[in-house]
C-alpha cells in the first residue's frame, strides 16, 4: 500500500488531487470523495473507495484514516495506526483560513511526515486580505485594461475567486477555458464562486477592467495576447521573492499560497511535538536545521519522482 505513489500502484492512498500526488493508473484507490471526484474529472472514469474526513479502514492490521489538511478541496492528511504507534502524513497542508476547503485539523502522532515546500525562513505568507486588496486596487487603477492572474487550475484559482467574492467583488470573473470544469466541480461541492465567464473568443472591449484568471502556463502565451492591455499577476507563495516574480515577468505579485509558510510549518511541529519528524517535499535541509536547533528529532525523506517544484 502506497501513499501518493508517483508510479501506478496496486493499492494507493491519495492525499489530494494535485498532479504530483494523484497520478492515474493505480489499481485500487482510497481518497476523500472530493479527491476522487477531482481524479475522475482529470483522468476519466477512475473509481475508488471514498473516505470522508474522520473515516477509516483497516489493512494488514494498520488502521488508516483521512483528516482535513486545509490545502485544497478534499485534501487530507493520512493517519496510520499500528500497535499503538501513530504516524501522520500531512500531504500538502496549510493552516490559514480558506473558504474553499475544510480547515486543517491537528492530529496527535508519534511520527509526523511533513511537507516543506516553503521550508525557508524567508517565506511568510501575508494575510490574504492584504493581497486581495492589492489586487482590487490595481484593478481600480487599470480602467482601460485588465488584470490577468496566473493561478493553478485546482485550488488556487477557486480560492482567489472565493476570496474576491468575500471582499465584495461581485462582477463576473473571467476564466481560461481549461479551468471551467474544475470551477464547476467546486461549485457542485458547495463552494459558491459567483458568475464566471470563459474568456475565450470575447472582444477586447468586453474585457476592459476585468479580472481574468488563467493557468500560469498561459500567462506569456498567445492566449494572453487577445486580452486588452493586461497587467500580469501571479498568485503564488513564490512571489514573496522579488527575483522569482521578475523571472516570470510578473508585474503584480500576489503572495497567496495553499501551502504552510515557515511559521505554520514550525508552529505545527511545536504544537504536535512528534517524537520524530520526517521531512519531505521541499526544503528539507532548512526545516531539518530548525528541528536540530529546537532539539526535535528529524530526518529528510527524499522521495523519488518529486524533483519538480510544487505549485506554490
Amino acid at each position, binding site marked *: 500500500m502506497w501513499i501518493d505513489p508517483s508510479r501506478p500502484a496496486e493499492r494507493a492512498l491519495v492525499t489530494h488531487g494535485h498532479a504530483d500526488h494523484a497520478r492515474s493508473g493505480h489499481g485500487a484507490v482510497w481518497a476523500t470523495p472530493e479527491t476522487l471526484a477531482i481524479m475522475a474529472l482529470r483522468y476519466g472514469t477512475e473509481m475508488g473507495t471514498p473516505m470522508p474526513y474522520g473515516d477509516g479502514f483497516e489493512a494488514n492490521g494498520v488502521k488508516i484514516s483521512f483528516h482535513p489538511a486545509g490545502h485544497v478541496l478534499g485534501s487530507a492528511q493520512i493517519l496510520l495506526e499500528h500497535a499503538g504507534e501513530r504516524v501522520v502524513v500531512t500531504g500538502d497542508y496549510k493552516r490559514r483560513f480558506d473558504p474553499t476547503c475544510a480547515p486543517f485539523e491537528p492530529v496527535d502522532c508519534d511520527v509526523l511526515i511533513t511537507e516543506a515546500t516553503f521550508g*525557508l*525562513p*524567508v*517565506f*511568510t505568507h*501575508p494575510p490574504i486580505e492584504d493581497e486581495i486588496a492589492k489586487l482590487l486596487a490595481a484593478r481600480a487603477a487599470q480602467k482601460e485594461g485588465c488584470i490577468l492572474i496566473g493561478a493553478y487550475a485546482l485550488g488556487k484559482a477557486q480560492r482567489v475567486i472565493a476570496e474576491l467574492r468575500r471582499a465584495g467583488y461581485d462582477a463576473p470573473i473571467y476564466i481560461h477555458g481549461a479551468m471551467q470544469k474544475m470551477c464547476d466541480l467546486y461549485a457542485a461541492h458547495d463552494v459558491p464562486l459567483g458568475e464566471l465567464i470563459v474568456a475565450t473568443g470575447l472582444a477586447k472591449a468586453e474585457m476592459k477592467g476585468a479580472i481574468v484568471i488563467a493557468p500560469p502556463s498561459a500567462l*506569456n*502565451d*498567445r492566449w*494572453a*495576447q487577445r486580452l486588452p492591455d493586461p497587467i500580469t499577476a501571479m498568485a503564488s507563495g513564490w512571489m*514573496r*521573492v*522579488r*527575483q522569482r*516574480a*521578475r523571472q516570470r*515577468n*510578473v*508585474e*503584480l*505579485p500576489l503572495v497567496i499560497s495553499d501551502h504552510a509558510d515557515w511559521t505554520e510549518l514550525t508552529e505545527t511541529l511545536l504544537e504536535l511535538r512528534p517524537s520524530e519528524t520526517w521531512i519531505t517535499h521541499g*526544503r528539507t*535541509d*532548512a526545516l531539518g*536545521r*530548525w528541528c536540530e*536547533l529546537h532539539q526535535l528529532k528529524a530526518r529528510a525523506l527524499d522521495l523519488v519522482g518529486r524533483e519538480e517544484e510544487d505549485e506554490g
Partner: protein
Amino acid sequence: MQAFSALIDGLIYTRSRDHKVRLIADYLRSTPDPDRGWALAALAGTLSIATVKAAAIRAMAEERFDPMLFRMSRDYVGDTAETVALMWPEVSADAVAPTVSEVIDLLNSTSRARAPNVLAELMDRLDANGRYALLKLATGGMRVGISARLAKTAFGQAFGVSVDDVEEVWHALSPPYAALFAWGEGKSERPDPADSAFFRPFMLAHPLEDGIVDLDAYAAEWKWDGIRIQIASTGGETRLFSRGGDEVTGAFPEIAAAFNGIGVVDGELLVRGDVQGGEAASFNALQQRLGRKNVTAAMQAEYPVFVRLYDILFDGAEDLRSQPWNARRERLERFAAQLDTVRFDLSAIIEARDFDHLAEIRAAAREAAIEGVMLKRRDAPYLAGRKVGLWYKWKREPLVADCVMMYAQRGSGKRSSYYSDYTFGCWTPDGALLPVGKAYSGFSDAELKWLDRFVRDNTVARFGPVREVEKSLVLEVAFDAVHESKRHKSGIAMRFPRISRLRRDKPADEADTIANLRAMIG
C-alpha cells in the same frame, strides 16, 4: 516609508520605461517635502548615508539568525538585503512606520558603530516591503533600473517643466532638493545653476534616406563608431555625460583628468589603436565601462581611450550654441589646440568636390571605426534633439550574407511569447554549419509570426529556453562589418547583424560559406 516602498516595488516589477516615469511622477506629486526629495536623491543616485555600509546589514543578520538558516536563505533569495528583510520578524500591529526623512535623519545623526542598532529599531517598525526599501535606501543601492536622467525626466513630467531645465539646475542643488520642488510647484523662481558643470542635451541627426545634399550648404565628417560623449568643465570640476545625459565621469576618469579646457564639447569616445571595431570586444569593453561607477587601472591600460571632438557648445562661459556650425568649428579648432593630444583630437572634415565624390569616398572607406558619414548644415545652430534638415547621418551600405537558421530563443517583454532571437550559421568546406551571429530585429510583425511558427514546427531539440531547428531556412542577414573572433567556433563575428529578408525560396545548401564571409573582413 510605505509610499516609498510601494514605489520601489512598482519600479522593480514594471518593465515599461513610460510606466516607471509615471510611477515616480505620481509619487513626487503626492508626497510631501522633504520625503520626496530624499526619494528623488535615492533614485538619482545622489543620496549617500555615510554611517551604513553593506557590512552593517550582514552584521545585523549574523546577530539575529542562525548562520546556516541565513546562508540557505541567502543562497535562495540571491540578495542579502532582501533576505534580511524577509527573515525579519513580522511587524507588530501597533508599530508606527517611520517616514523617509525620519530614516535619513536618524541614520545621518548616528555613528557607524551605532548604525546597526538604529537600523534594527527601524526594521521593527516596517513590514517586509518597507524593510526591503529601508535597507536599499540605507545602503544606497536601489537597483530598480532607474538612471539619474530618468529620475529627472519623471520630475519634469510631475511638474510640467522640461527635463533640460531640470538638468540645468540639478547640479547646483543638493538633497532633499527643496528649492527644486518649490520651483516645480511654481512657488519660486528657477534656482540658479551658478558655477557647475552640467549636461546640455545633444544635437542629433536624422538618417539620410535617399536624398542628395549640396556640399556648399553641408559639411561632411566621418561618423565614428564609438560612444557619444559630452565633456563639461568649469575649471573647478569636469564631468562626462553619455547620450542620455547620465554622468559617466567615473567610468572614464583618464578623460576627465586630461581635459584642461573650460567649456562644453561634444565628441566620440574611441579606443586608441586598430582594435576599435576590429574586434567587437573593444566596443563591448567601452560599453561595459560606461555602466560602471569606477574602473580599474588595468581596464584603463587595456583599452586606451580618447575623445574625437566634433563640436563645441561653450567656450569658457560663452554659450556658442546659437552660432552657426562654421563659426563653432573655428572655435573648436582653436579650443582643441590647447588639449592633450593623447586624449583628444579633432574629427576631420571630409574634402569632397561634390556629392558624387563624397559617395565615392564613403564607399571606399574601410576603416573599421568609420560607420558612415555625417552631414551638418554649415549655418545651423546647435539645437537639442533631432531637427529636420540640419544634421544627417549617412551610414555605410550594410553587407549582406545568406545564412541558415540554427537555433531560436524566446524574446523578452512584449515578444516573450514568440521565438524572436535567432542564431544562424554558414557552411564550412566539409558541409557543416557553424554559427556566425545572432539577430533579433529587422523583420515585420507578420514575418515574426511566420518565423515563430517555423520554429515551433521545426524544432529538433530543446536546451532550456533554446530550440534547435531543422537547418532548412535561409535568412538574408545584413551587418555593418565582419571580423575575426575567438569567441565563435567559426572564427568570425558580425557587427550589428539584423535579418534583412526571409529567403524561403532559397535551399539551405545554397547559403553562404564561412569563406565567403571571411572575404568580407575589411
